[in-house]
């Protein structure tokens, strides 16, 4: 099982920001996989050029969300089709509130993608 890199609950931990590439390295309506010490991260880019990062693991059965089809600000998991809200990691529709893919801190500066990881 992958362990969340950060927890959204409680005090915000100090983050180390790492440049992991350009926004344009991710296809529009697509995603890339980003290996990390705590498991893979999925970095998404929507059709209207927004970016999101979630742990690459569907709350349903751990499917790799980075391999799903991205539509509006959501992704459909390739294994069993659960639709995940990219902004919250939560399921959508009937799957809302049935588990979350943890959100990974992501920032964009001058077209570069910065991922924030908790300090060791």
């Amino acid at each position, binding site marked *: 099982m992958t362990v969340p890199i950060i927890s959204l609950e409680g005090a915000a931990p100090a983050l180390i920001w*790492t440049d992991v590439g350009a926004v344009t*390295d991710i296809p529009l309506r697509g995603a890339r996989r980003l290996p*990390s010490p705590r498991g893979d991260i999925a*970095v998404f880019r929507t059709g209207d050029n927004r970016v999101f990062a979630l742990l690459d693991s569907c709350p349903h059965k751990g499917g790799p969300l980075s391999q799903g*089809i991205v539509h*509006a600000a959501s992704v*459909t998991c*390739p294994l069993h089709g659960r639709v995940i809200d990219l902004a919250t990691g939560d399921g959508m529709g009937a799957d809302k509130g049935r588990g979350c893919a943890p959100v990974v801190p992501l920032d964009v500066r001058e077209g570069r993608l910065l991922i924030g990881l908790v300090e060791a």
Partner: protein
Amino acid sequence: MSRERLVVIGNGMAGCRAVQEVLKRDPDRYDITIFGAEPRVNYDRIMLSPVLAGEKSFSDIVINGHDWYRDNGIVLHAGAAVTAIDRDARIVRADGIDAAYDRVILAMGSDPIRLPLPGADLNGVVTFRDLDDGEQMVAAAKPGARAVVIGGGLLGIEAAYGLARRGMAATVVHLMDVLMERQLDASASFLLGDALVARGVETVLGAHSEEIVGDNGRVTGLRLKDGRTQPCDILVMAVGIRPATALAKAAGLEVNRGIVVDDAMTTSDPRIVAVGECVEHRGQCYGLVAPIWDMCRTVGDTLTDSGGGYRGSALSTRLKVSGVDVFSAGKFGGGEGCEDIVFRDAGRGVYKRIVLENGKVAGAVLFGDAADGAWYFDLMRSGAPIADIRETLIFGQAITEGLRGLDPSAAVAAMPDGAEICGCNGVCKGVITGAIATQGLTTLDAVRGVTKASASCGSCTPLVEKLLGLMLGDGFKAATGPAPMCKCTTHDHGHVRRAIVAEALKSLPAAMQALEWSTPDGCASCRPALNYYMICAWPGEYRDDKQSRFINERVHANIQKDGTYSVVPRMWGGMTTPDELRAIADVADKFAIPAVKVTGGQRIDLLGVKKDDLPAVWADLNAAGMVSGHAYGKALRTVKTCVGTDWCRFGTQDSTGLGIRLEKFLWGSWTPAKVKLGVSGCPRNCAEATCKDIGIICVDSGYEIHIGGAAGLHIRGTELLTKVATETEAFWTVCAIVQIYREQAWYLERIYKWMDRVGLEAIKAFLADPDDRKALFERFAFSQRTSRLDPWAERVAGRHAEEFQPLSRRLEFAPA
């Protein structure tokens, strides 16, 4: 009183027609003399292409023979080129012949434009204007010889077609990207290109001619700017015409591009009128026959003082290439403030586009079925408002007139039995009502199954439903429509498929815009469906949207529960070799692939491959000669075979060979859902063909072709579709089935489900006509030209490399 003297310069279509118009009005007014540069009587220049093609002889295209000249007291000087008009002395001078005149008709026509290319003076470089040109081409047209025609306009295409009919390999080289761009829009031009290929004429578009190359003073080829050379034994320049004005200019008449005439067709000299391609009227020159006939009527009026006048002509065009029905008129390409009504029937190769502006017909282009061209042209010229006939306008005059002013049911009742209801399948009202009455049909689907009516594009569905209503009264309830494709749209799959074709929607954004999608970029259900519909509708043209592919089709492997992938190389017909098996074993060792399994489709599955390893795994499999098995796609999967006559003592035919032949032709094709084939060499059916999407059972007398089997979620035996005698017929028929399925089924609809929806009888009907089968086969073959590529090899070569690499490895060793 002596008669006035009328001298006509030009013995062509315009000159003689003008004379006829004069004679019609006042046969006794003039003594008439005609000079013609060609040594022959008046013939129909438009029909030169059929003469070139060998479909007609010269005597077939003579308009006025010697008796016409004799009966009307006309003196003909054929082969006498006029050298001067002496306007002071009022004498027309030819070689050794002087003719005094009171009035003159100038009808010299036009000269073909010769491009000033290097080598244009070589032997074998000709233009296409008169019978002599045609004869020169025919002389060169030995079967197997090659012709290049520069110019993809009306004349160039006709010349190339004629030469192809004479057994030559003809190629049209055209500067523009659209054939006949002055008459056709891009869609019709595309269809024309295809139709020409079927008639042995290749087209090279967007091609700049640079030099005509030759050997010993004789043409051998045409070199293009991009460096390519088109070899040829004859080169025809058909790039356009120029009004023949030299004589008029020398005589001091006013000349711009053509000889300037007023609305009475009178030149700057009131004794001289001009007509045809040599004139310029209100700034316009004409090269088509209809306006020239209008001009000739005016010349008749002017020369007999009958008033009248010429105000210019609206233009329409018909192409005379046999079997290709093309019509265009007016603003056929649309434009700002215009609306389009478009109808396409891929099955018949029909494309119709009516352009509306301010509620009136402003133009039309018709391809494949131009029967209503004249009607649209009349509507356009008369400027009649069409608001009340708009809904049926595209179906043509017969349907529209039948319905005008009536309420819909009464209108349908009033239609004659011979009225065509279903244009796609040519089904008349009487056939439908007859089938309803005699076979007790009560549903739309039943009518579709029995008659094919409304089974293709579906646009006549309301008409068919009204007929059912008329026949059955309250006994008929129109079916409630099928469910929407997904939550992004209210439209069902069938509607979306039709709209993509009918409205020429060639990208996902275009389709979503036109069909009013309620989401910005669709969802995981509609995007793959739309992407497939585009691939099917616009083969070779549409660029696959990889972001709209399900992961398996995006990375060409099957995702597994742990995010690894499985890899299944193709084994043609289930046959393999020791070398292939060794390569598979080596790959499994090299990449530590944890599981190797034999599949139900007679191949080998490598399970647990890491995504990043896929290109390297494929490279090794490619190196051993293996390609993608598409085990991951809505595509052709396997063709399972038994060993047939090769080994089996019961085999009746070479089932393995047929299976391999089919798989090698069908592989790479994208389909609405997966397609599995089986070929069994005898009715013992060891290849289990009768639970496949398409199954072939070989028997002593031929091949039974079955469809609609399934052995998964549902268990279904196949239904017998047809039986054919030869392997080649079996091959063609299977390809035709795959194509009709590709064109008609809804995304994710397996053949058995599609068959349940449209009916086996409807599918039989689609394939009944050999011409339809051939057309389906050809469309499939066309699509396969750009599909039958190994996606693995493309990715080994670096395509979409980022797909198989992580975004970054910088975090891997970051603080943990």
